[in-house]
């Protein structure tokens, strides 16, 4: 596993974390 492999995994995880964080924020802020 080299730098590029970690970069790919980081990119995928980054998007996933952003989405989940955003969903949680929406849910807790009570926005409809």
């Amino acid at each position, binding site marked *: *596993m080299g730098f590029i492999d970690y970069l790919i995994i980081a990119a995928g995880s980054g998007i996933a974390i952003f989405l989940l964080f955003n969903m949680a924020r929406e849910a807790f802020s009570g926005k409809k």
Partner: protein
Amino acid sequence: MMAKIVVAALYIFAILVIGIISGRNVKTADDFATADRNIPFWTNVYSMSSAWIGAGSTLGCASMCYAYGIQGFYLAISVGIGAILASVLFSKKVREANVTTIPELIRKYLGNKVAAWISLLAIFQIFGIAASQIRSLGTILQMFIPSLNLLTAILIMTGVMLVYTVIGGLVSATKTDKLNISLMVISVMVIIPAISLNKAGGLHGFAATVDPSYLSMKKLGIGAMISSGLYFCTSNMLNSENFLRVCGARSANEARSASLTATFLIYIPYLLFASLAGLLGLVIVKNLGTSDSILPAMINTLTNDVLGAFLLAALLAAVMGTAASVTMLTSITVTRDVIGRITHIEDSKLLTVQRIVMIVVAGLGVLVGYSGSSIVSIMEDVGAPCGAALVPIFCGIFFWREKMNEKGTLITIAVAVVATLGYLAAGSPLGISHFLFGIICSTITMFAANSICYKPGVKQAEGEQ
């Protein structure tokens, strides 16, 4: 085995709870069909992504790279370009037209006769997609519980889909899509790449072990690649799965930006990750009989029961979002553009009629889906003329409206149908797909026929309802 059943049951339970709770306040036909045109931006981003990504895109991208090596990425790229074009060219203008179905949009600009023909074609096409997604729901549930027969599996999953969509329509669909897209992104963009990169020894390890022919651009002829790429790009421009979500956005600008955000943030990365998984599969699962099942095969090889079940649930989620979406669009189109045109339905009854039609459409979808994958592919073939007619007509009414007229458009539709089906019946002699041939003919016809039939000063149907 037990773990798989538990995970499948948990997924089904969660989808039902979210769908029923969020949909219980749906009171009007507009709530049902367009979520009262009030879908929040991010909710719509997730929902659009979940509707777009189905079994076809997930398994298809992986399968292409498993079959053709790095060249297989062309599928993800061309589908992605189609989605970008759809977002940029159509989404804002579709939302501005304030409609609910594709024929309604056409009726607004080109009158009743054109809309009637488009309804016929559109219903055939979207029903074909619905039937194939309903079949996929069953085949994926079978991966969890292999002893289940296909019909039972299809019936269980269609039943689950119907419960929450009949109650809550698009409102429930957009809420359950949050669960669907989370599962899909975590599985395909985090877990599968991490495990398979590790197993393959990273990209370097992969490049060292794989048969070098998979790293060349010679596996698939360039002509075949371009023709197939153009096909996926143009057919994806129509995006009927997303039509209701574009119509349900709060404003036209939001429709376009949500569609673009979904495309760049989720859809394209997801497709690239699915392709990467198929590529790495070349060194992880060797000599698989059919490339179509590479992703499920990798899940079986690489993971333990619990993790494998979670990844399979993501596949189920991918299909669920799309199946619910197209079944809903089919039934809403049938209700509003066929039943609603034949007899007048009062507003108070429209919601009930939509719900009943939804159950009937799903029932027919089960019948067609169960009767065989070959029938599904025949239906998709027959649905191709619709795409071949609609893509140029959409471009025409949005960017060339002045010259578009009823007669010219009717000729365009006729040419699209005859060219597409005729070319298919002749055995696709030019080496390009029948859809691509049809769309080339219909585009040329659209410009020629509308120019010839155009009479300056004759008012078109705009604003007529």
